[in-house]
């Protein structure tokens, strides 16, 4: 049998998706379904002093209006993947940002709920002007909670030894996740049990949160999210609308559907916060880095905590003896940031990799050469050898495929007609992140396997990849394996986030399949009629629906034979995989690495910027599905083009209202913005886990912004230290 793991099999949920038959939360319906609509604050700071819902309640179809005056007391939710949860909604009269929910209206139809929501009259007391600006002296500048700072050596001493010092400030704009799928929650109570259909990237966490917030047992909460219309981090949190849908359904005694509008997707499900980052770095004449200092400040909610680890990756990116990184935040009257694909890294890498490029020019070195000379052969913070690190190969293979050697280092020297051409480069050292995960594997009398875990597949390909892993580990063809996810009643799984799920879940599926084979061997341990009698796991292999002796493939039997002979309908096991510990480790746990090469073209008269082509060379360990892995990197790359050139959530400086909260005004890349994208995988399976996979959900995005900015500099001689790089900045 050909190997399943690694081969580029088609996405298994593709046929359902291309027929429009995959049910997203927005598509879920119930008999007697009621609909909820949200009322949002029209001020950014102050208090609600009165709410008049008389007209709303008198509107046709309206079932109830819930405000802070009528909402029950709710318990704050537990911590999530990146720290604290959003606060429970409607708990007091304080307004912390424009767009904060102040009421939810429930009616028989969505239209009736919408109409009534507009009739809720809210009176506010504004007080001082809201804090909206990084430079507002009234705003608090605080260390990021749960200290993300890193330190080694002595930066000042390092700088004192430097022949060349580069110092600059870089800024990045607010970005909004904007998955195409509107976030929606459908909640249906049946007695004390609630079923919640939601666009979550983490069903188990949504279940735990709803239980905690409403003070009920987790077993009384059933979360379903088989299909999620994209999320890019927005689904890692249980946002207030989810709680409100559950609350509304309980209040009206009917199932309730709450679908966010596109403008609400800008204020209610998180975003990538803006940043201001200062970098100081020094090098000797030969390019040896002797000091890097990276201080980031990001925007944060005035009241509620969030974490944006912006500068941390800098510490492990280069072999440099003296490094200090610090993250701090500016508390403002803005919607609560969340996580957006490559949180922190996406901003931090732009600053670091722009600065490295600038330093290369200051030293008169090729930017690729400077990076090669400072390659971290061991983990620079721990000093341990990497468990796997093919960044060097990413550089060389990527440069070769891209044609980096054709680059004339002189800025503005390459052109074609009226297009100025620039080549830019950036490198990425992504973090290691894996968590414990559970899976269940079953083989039934008909010889088919069913494997499941409460994971999520928001477009990543998890469903497909895990079926491949299970098929290979059980020796079954793909068609005989079913893999299901997206249901909190399945064994516990972590979030589809932090580029961690494929590795974490893959190891759990691997463990479950191995345990299942062992279970079959247990059954025949004393079975005289079995050729596998007395065999241990090490003695056997699986192939073509059979377990056979390792040394003699003809000596074995089918799963179905064992089940039939022993009168069993099925065998099933649950298993858990835990990630490798760093305690007493001899190897540093390695995340993925990548090098990105970009050709940028800038119109010399109009300032128009086009990305002509991108080459990404990536070490993500073992690639489990070549096709879906490539799609992840291509998709991330396009997100990176958005971050670099288009995306900026704009807040009105007076009112705090987001002024471009539509797809007409907040620009994301379209098909015509997309260049030829070459993705090439290098490296080898990471030896610390049985599958050897490293994550690749986010590394596709990170680095594109710096590579484009560096390309723009090479094309034009203009160094733009602020993204997005819009054409007005080049005129």
């Amino acid at each position, binding site marked *: 049998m050909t190997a399943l793991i690694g081969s580029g099999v088609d*996405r298994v949920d593709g*046929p359902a998706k*291309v027929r*429009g038959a995959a049910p997203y939360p927005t598509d879920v319906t119930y008999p007697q379904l009621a609909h909820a609509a949200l009322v949002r604050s029209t001020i950014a700071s102050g208090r609600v002093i009165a709410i008049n819902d008389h007209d709303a309640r008198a509107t046709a179809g309206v079932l109830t209006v819930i405000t802070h005056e009528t909402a029950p007391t709710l318990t704050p939710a537990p911590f999530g993947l990146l720290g604290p949860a959003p606060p429970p909604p409607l708990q007091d009269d304080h307004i912390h940002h424009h767009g904060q929910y102040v009421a939810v209206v429930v009616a028989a139809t969505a239209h009736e709920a919408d109409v009534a929501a507009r009739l809720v009259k809210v009176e506010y007391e504004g007080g001082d002007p809201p804090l909206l600006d990084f430079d507002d002296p009234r705003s608090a500048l605080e260390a990021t909670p749960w200290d993300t700072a890193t330190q080694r050596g002595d930066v000042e001493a390092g700088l004192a030894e430097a022949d060349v010092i580069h110092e600059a400030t870089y800024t990045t704009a607010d970005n909004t996740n904007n998955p195409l*799928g509107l976030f929606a929650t459908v909640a249906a109570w049946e007695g004390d049990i609630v079923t919640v259909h939601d666009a979550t990237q983490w069903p188990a966490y949504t279940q735990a949160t709803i239980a905690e917030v409403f003070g009920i047992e987790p077993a009384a909460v059933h979360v379903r999210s088989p299909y999620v219309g994209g999320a890019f981090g927005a689904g890692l949190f249980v946002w207030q609308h989810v709680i409100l849908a559950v609350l509304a359904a309980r209040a009206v005694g009917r199932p309730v559907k709450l679908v966010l509008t*596109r403008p609400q997707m800008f204020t209610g499900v998180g975003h990538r916060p803006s940043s201001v980052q200062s970098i100081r770095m020094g090098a000797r004449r030969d390019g040896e880095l002797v000091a890097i200092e990276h201080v980031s400040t990001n925007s944060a909610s005035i009241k509620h905590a969030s974490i944006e680890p912006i500068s941390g990756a800098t510490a492990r990116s280069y072999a440099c003896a003296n490094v200090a990184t610090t993250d701090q935040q500016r508390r403002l009257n803005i919607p609560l940031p969340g996580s957006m694909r490559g949180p922190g890294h996406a901003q931090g890498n732009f600053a670091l990799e722009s600065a490295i490029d600038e330093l290369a020019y200051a030293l008169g070195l090729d930017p690729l050469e400077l990076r090669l000379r400072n390659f971290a052969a061991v983990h620079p913070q721990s000093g341990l050898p990497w468990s796997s690190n093919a960044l060097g190969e990413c550089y060389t293979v990527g440069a070769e495929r891209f044609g980096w050697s054709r680059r004339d280092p002189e800025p503005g020297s390459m052109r074609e007609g009226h297009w100025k051409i620039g080549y830019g480069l950036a490198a990425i050292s992504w973090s290691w992140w894996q968590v414990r995960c559970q899976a269940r594997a079953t083989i039934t009398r008909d010889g088919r396997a069913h494997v499941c875990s409460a994971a999520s597949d*928001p*477009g990543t390909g998890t469903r497909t990849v895990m079926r491949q892993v299970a098929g290979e580990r059980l020796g079954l063809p793909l068609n005989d394996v079913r893999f299901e996810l997206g249901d909190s009643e399945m064994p516990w799984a972590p979030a589809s986030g932090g580029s961690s799920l494929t590795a974490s879940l893959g190891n759990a599926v691997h463990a479950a399949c191995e345990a299942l084979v062992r279970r079959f061997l247990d059954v025949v341990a004393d079975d005289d009629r079995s050729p596998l009698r007395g065999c241990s796991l090490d003695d056997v292999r699986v192939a073509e629906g059979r377990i056979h002796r390792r040394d003699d493939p003809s000596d074995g039997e089918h799963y179905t034979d064992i089940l039939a002979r022993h009168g069993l309908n099925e065998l099933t096991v649950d298993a858990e995989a835990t990630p490798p510990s760093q305690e007493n480790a001899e190897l540093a746990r390695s995340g993925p690495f990548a090098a990105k090469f970009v050709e940028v073209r800038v119109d010399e008269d109009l300032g128009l910027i086009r990305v002509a082509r991108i080459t990404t060379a990536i070490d993500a360990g073992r690639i489990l599905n070549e096709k879906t892995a490539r799609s992840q990197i291509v998709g991330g790359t396009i997100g990176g083009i958005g971050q670099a050139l288009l995306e900026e959530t704009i807040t009105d400086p007076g009112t705090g209202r987001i002024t471009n909260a539509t797809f007409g005004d907040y620009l994301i890349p*379209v098909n*015509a913005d997309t260049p030829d994208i070459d993705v090439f995988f290098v490296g080898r399976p990471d030896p610390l886990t049985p599958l050897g996979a490293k994550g690749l959900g986010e590394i596709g995005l990170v680095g594109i912004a710096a590579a484009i900015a560096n390309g723009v500099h090479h094309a034009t001689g203009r160094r733009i230290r602020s993204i997005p790089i819009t054409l007005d900045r080049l005129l």
Partner: protein
Amino acid sequence: MAATLISLTASVNGVLYELGVAGRDTLLDVLRERLALTGTKKGCDQGACGACTVLVDGRRVLSCLMLAAQCDGCEVTTIEGLGSEAQLHPLQSAFVRHDALQCGYCTPGQIMSAVALLDEGRAGSDDEIREFMSGNLCRCGAYPNIVAAIRDVAGR
């Protein structure tokens, strides 16, 4: 207060429907809420994302911007009317083969747009496909694979 209903006769995926619709009802909402054809997606409800693309008399339209009442006497085709589980439309299978989708939410709109694009004769080059598919946003970033799938079916 019951709104005055407008009577509407339209063929949707070859099935004739006689409906009473409110003047404000969009084609998108009628398809999704009344006819339970939820394959057509709502991504913005503002005519800016293309997720709700359907064919009306063979032309691609944004069903969130079209009033249902405008469809009287029209032939509407949605993703459900394109291919069956047993026999996918060539574009549907090409989308699967080329991995031209990730989360899948924009996919029905992309495919309906692509069907019209081929009819319009706008698949002559990759650049042409890119340009004339740019009304359909994909946040997952499946664009290059979408171009490949359309190119494949266009037989280039």
